[in-house]
C-alpha cells in the first residue's frame, strides 16, 4: 500500500488491543431475590409483575401475577402485605403500595374479563380438594392449570371458606370474591357444595381420586368457660361472622363486648358496630403492643369508635352485666390476676378466642398425626397417609388468606410431582437483594399514593367497602415507584458508564451483555447499577 509522505504504517483501530486481559475482577449480570418476593407467603413474583405494570401493560402484569396467585382482587383487599414490610423503597421514602397495585390489577381483570390460560393437555389424574377456602381454591387452580382433573367438595352453601364466612363485607365485597372464584371454576374445576366429607378414604374411593388435598380450615370458635346467668347472651365470633352471610342478621343489642385480641376480635367488634351497637368494647387481657391483631386494623377500629379495655379478663356474665378482673403484666410479659374486679354493662358477649379445626373427616385414616388440634404434614405438605396432603388453617401455620393461598400452590406442585412419581425440587433461591446492594441515587423521590379512605363516620353503620382503589394514573405511578431490586430494568446505566464501551446493549427486553474482550474490570457498572443486578467475581488468573 502506498503511504502519504512521512507515513510508514497503516493506521489501525485500537480494537486490536484487547484490554480485557487487564482484568482481575469480572462483572456478571445476576438476578437477585427482591425482598418483596422473599416475604410473600403466596410466593408471588412481585417485582416481575410490577415490571409489566410500569409500562402500562396491565394484562401481562396480571398474567405474571396469577401464575402464582389466582386471586389478586381478593389479595389486594385482605392481604396483610408482608411484601410492603420488606420493601427497600422504605429506606428511600415510603414503601411501594404493592397491595394497592395488586388490587388494581385484580379489579381490571374483573372489569375486562381477563381469563386464565386453560391447561394444554389432560393428565388423566384426578385430585379431590376438600374445602373451597383460599388454600383449597389455590390448590385446585394450580392442579387444574397443570392438567389434572380437580373436584372441590365443600360443606358450606357457597365457596370461599373464611373469605366469605369470616371476613366482613366491608373489607371484601362478595361480588369480587364471586368473580375470582368463578374464574377458577371456569378452568374446569368441579365444585360440590353442601357436601361435607365425612370419611376421606371412602370419598376418594367413590370418586376414583388419585390424591387428596385437605383444606377444611378452622371454623369452630374456641369457647372459654365463663360462668353465665341463664339470660346472658354469649356467642362466638366465628358464628357471628358466619351468620352475617345468612338472611337473619344476629341481634346483639346496643352494648356489645368482644373478648380477644386477634384480627377476628377486631372484625367482630367492627361488625357489631355496623349492626347498630352504640358501644362496642374489646376486652383483652394484655396490652395493645402485645395484641396479635395488625396495628392498622386496631387503628381503623379506633377511628370507627370501637373502645378497648386492656389488661382485663372476663370472669362472669350476668344479664346486662359483665364482671371483669384487672390484670397486670409480669416481667415475662404474661398477664397475672390482681384480684381487683369491676363491672361492665353489656347486652351480649362475643368470644374471639381463636378457632379449632373440625377433624371428623379424618377419623379412622391410618398414619395421620394430629398435634395441638392441627394435622401434621411433612416438607412436601403430605400428611402421614400417603397421597393425602393438607394445608391452610388445619395445619400448623400463621392463619391468613395469603399463607393459605401459598399452601395451596406449594401443595399443588408436590401433589403433581407425587402423581408423576417424582419429587418436586423447588428452584434454587437467588441471593437476597438487600438495600446495601442498591445505588439509591438513581431513584427520584416519589411519595406513596394513599388510597382513598371512606370517612370514619360513614363506616360505622354501613357495610360498604372501606378502602377505595387506585385508578389507572395513580396505579401506574405507584408501580413505577418500584426499585426493581436485584433485577435489571434496562435503565442503560451499565451501558452508559463503561469507560471502555464494553457493554453491549441487546435491545428492548433482551438486557445487556459484557464484552469481556475489552472490559478492564473497573466495576463502575456494578457500582452505578441502581438495582444491584451486577456482581463482581474474581477472575481465575
Amino acid at each position: 500500500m502506498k503511504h502519504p509522505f512521512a507515513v510508514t504504517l497503516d493506521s489501525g483501530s485500537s480494537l486490536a488491543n484487547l484490554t480485557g486481559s487487564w482484568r482481575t475482577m469480572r462483572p456478571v449480570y445476576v438476578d437477585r431475590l427482591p425482598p418483596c418476593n422473599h416475604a410473600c407467603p403466596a410466593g408471588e413474583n412481585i417485582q416481575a409483575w410490577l415490571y409489566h405494570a410500569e409500562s402500562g401493560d396491565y394484562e401481562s402484569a396480571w398474567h405474571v401475577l396469577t401464575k402464582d396467585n389466582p386471586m389478586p382482587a381478593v389479595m389486594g383487599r385482605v392481604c396483610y402485605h408482608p411484601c410492603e414490610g420488606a420493601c427497600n423503597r422504605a429506606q428511600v421514602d415510603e414503601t411501594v403500595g404493592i397491595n394497592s397495585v395488586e388490587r388494581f390489577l385484580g379489579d381490571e381483570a374483573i372489569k375486562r374479563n381477563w381469563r386464565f390460560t386453560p391447561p394444554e393437555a389432560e393428565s388423566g389424574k384426578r385430585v379431590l380438594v376438600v374445602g373451597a377456602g383460599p388454600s383449597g381454591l389455590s390448590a385446585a387452580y394450580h392442579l387444574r392449570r397443570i392438567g389434572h382433573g380437580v373436584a372441590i367438595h365443600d360443606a358450606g352453601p357457597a365457596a370461599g371458606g373464611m373469605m366469605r364466612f369470616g371476613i366482613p363485607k366491608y373489607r371484601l365485597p362478595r361480588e369480587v370474591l364471586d368473580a375470582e372464584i368463578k374464574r377458577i371454576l371456569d378452568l374446569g374445576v368441579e365444585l360440590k357444595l353442601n357436601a361435607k366429607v365425612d370419611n376421606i378414604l371412602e370419598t376418594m374411593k367413590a370418586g376414583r381420586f388419585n390424591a387428596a388435598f385437605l383444606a377444611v380450615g378452622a371454623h369452630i370458635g374456641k369457647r372459654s368457660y365463663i360462668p353465665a346467668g341463664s339470660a346472658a347472651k354469649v356467642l362466638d365470633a366465628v358464628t357471628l361472622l358466619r351468620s352475617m352471610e345468612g338472611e337473619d342478621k344476629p341481634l346483639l343489642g346496643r352494648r356489645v363486648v368482644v373478648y380477644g385480641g386477634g384480627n377476628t376480635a377486631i372484625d367482630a367488634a367492627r361488625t357489631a358496630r355496623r349492626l347498630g351497637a352504640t358501644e362496642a368494647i374489646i376486652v383483652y387481657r394484655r396490652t395493645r403492643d402485645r395484641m396479635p391483631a395488625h396495628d392498622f386494623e386496631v387503628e381503623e377500629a379506633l377511628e370507627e369508635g370501637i373502645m378497648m379495655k386492656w389488661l382485663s379478663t372476663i370472669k362472669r356474665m350476668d344479664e346486662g352485666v359483665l364482671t371483669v378482673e384487672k390484670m397486670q403484666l409480669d416481667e415475662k410479659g404474661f398477664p397475672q390476676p390482681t384480684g381487683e374486679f369491676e363491672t361492665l354493662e353489656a347486652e351480649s358477649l362475643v368470644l374471639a378466642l381463636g378457632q379449632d379445626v373440625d377433624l371428623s373427616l379424618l377419623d379412622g385414616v391410618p398414619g395421620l398425626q394430629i398435634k395441638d388440634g392441627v394435622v401434621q404434614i411433612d416438607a412436601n405438605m403430605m400428611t402421614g397417609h400417603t397421597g393425602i396432603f393438607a394445608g391452610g388453617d388445619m395445619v400448623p401455620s400463621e392463619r391468613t388468606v395469603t399463607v393459605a393461598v401459598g399452601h395451596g400452590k406449594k401443595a399443588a406442585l408436590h401433589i403433581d410431582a407425587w402423581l408423576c412419581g417424582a419429587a418436586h425440587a423447588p428452584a434454587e433461591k437467588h441471593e437476597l437483594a438487600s438495600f446495601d446492594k442498591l445505588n439509591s441515587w438513581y431513584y427520584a423521590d416519589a411519595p406513596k399514593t394513599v388510597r382513598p379512605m371512606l370517612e370514619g363516620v360513614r363506616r360505622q353503620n354501613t357495610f360498604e367497602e372501606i378502602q377505595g382503589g387506585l385508578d389507572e394514573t395513580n396505579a401506574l405511578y405507584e408501580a413505577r415507584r418500584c426499585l426493581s431490586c436485584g433485577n435489571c430494568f434496562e435503565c442503560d446505566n451499565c451501558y452508559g458508564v463503561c469507560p471502555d464501551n464494553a457493554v453491549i446493549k441487546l435491545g428492548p427486553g433482551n438486557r445487556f451483555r459484557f464484552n469481556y474482550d475489552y472490559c478492564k474490570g473497573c466495576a463502575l457498572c456494578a457500582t452505578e447499577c441502581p438495582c444491584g443486578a451486577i456482581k463482581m467475581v474474581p477472575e481465575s488468573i
Partner: protein
Amino acid sequence: MTDPTATAAATQKLPFYQKGTFTVGNRLVSDGERSVQASIDRSNALTCGHRACQGCGEALGARYAMDAAMRATGGNLIAVNATGCLEVFTTPYPETSWQIPWLHSLFGNAAAVATGVAAAMRVKGRPEVRAIAQGGDGGTTDIGFGCLSGMFERNDDVLYICYDNEGYMNTGVQRSSATPPTARTATTPAIGPEPGNVFGTGKNLPKIAVAHGIPYVATATVADLHDLERKVMKAMGIHGARYIHIHVPCPLGWGSASHDTVRLARLAVESGLFPVFEAEYGIVTSSRKIRRPVPVAEYLKPQRRFAHLFKDAAGSQRLARLQAIADRNITEFKLLEPEEEAG
C-alpha cells in the same frame, strides 16, 4: 430534523417517571427522549481498546461529550486534541480509538488549530462541519492558556472542552494550575508544614472564560450525564467561542478506587466543591442544585491524595479551609436554593 436543544431539555426533566430521571436510559420513554448514551446507535466516538486506566473518568467524559456533539451536528464534526492523557491513551501510533475525524498537533495549540479547522471549513464552503478542541487541565489551564484566551477573545467558532482531572496524570501526576489546595501530587508531596498543594494558588478557568464574555460557558461532571449532554448539545447550537469544563475523576492520580469515579464526581458536586453552572455572554444564568448535601470530607476521604487531611489536628484545620471554599461556592452559585422555574 428536531431541535437538539429542545430534545435535550426534554430528557433533562422526566418528573413523571420515578426511576429513569437520573439513570442513563429509561425503557418507559420514547427513543427521542432518552440520552445519547442510552442509544444503541450512539457514535462511540471513543471506542474500545484504548489504554486508559480502569475506571478512567476522562475516557468516559470524552465519549459522553463527543457522542452528544456527533448527534447535535449530524456527524459533521472534527475534533482537535491537545497533548495529554486523552491523546496518549487513545492514539499510540498506529492505533486510534477515535471514530471521528481527529487531529493532534502540539500540547499548547489545540484552540488555535481548531480555529484553523473552523476557518478552513468555512473557506471550503462547508460551514456545517463544526470544530471542537479538547484537552486536559494541563493543556488548557497552563500550556494552552494563551491560545485558548485568544480563541475566546476573537470569538472563534470553536467549542473548547476541558476534561479536568486536576493534574498532569500520564506523565506521573504532577501539579497543574487546576490542582486543588492540599492535594498530594509528585511535585507537591504531602510533607512539611503545608503538605500537598498550597492554598491561594491556581486558576478557576470556567470563571476566566465567563470573564471573556463569550456566548456560552458551562461546567459539568461525568456523574450527571443528562446535564452534560444537554450542555454539549446546547453549545453546538450556538456559533462563536464556547467553553465546557468537565470534572473527570482520575483513579490513578487521585488514589481512588476505579469503581468510585462516578461517585466521586457526584460527591464533588453535592459537597459544593465543584459548582455546576452555565453562563451566557459573561453572566451566570443557572446552576445545578445540590440534591443530597454532604460535607467535603465525604468527597475527599476516598482519595489517597487527601489522606493527610485525616491524620491530625492540622489536617482538620486544612479540611475546614476546604469546607469554607465549598461553602463559598454554595453561596456564590446559589447551590442550595430552590430550583427557579424555567421561563
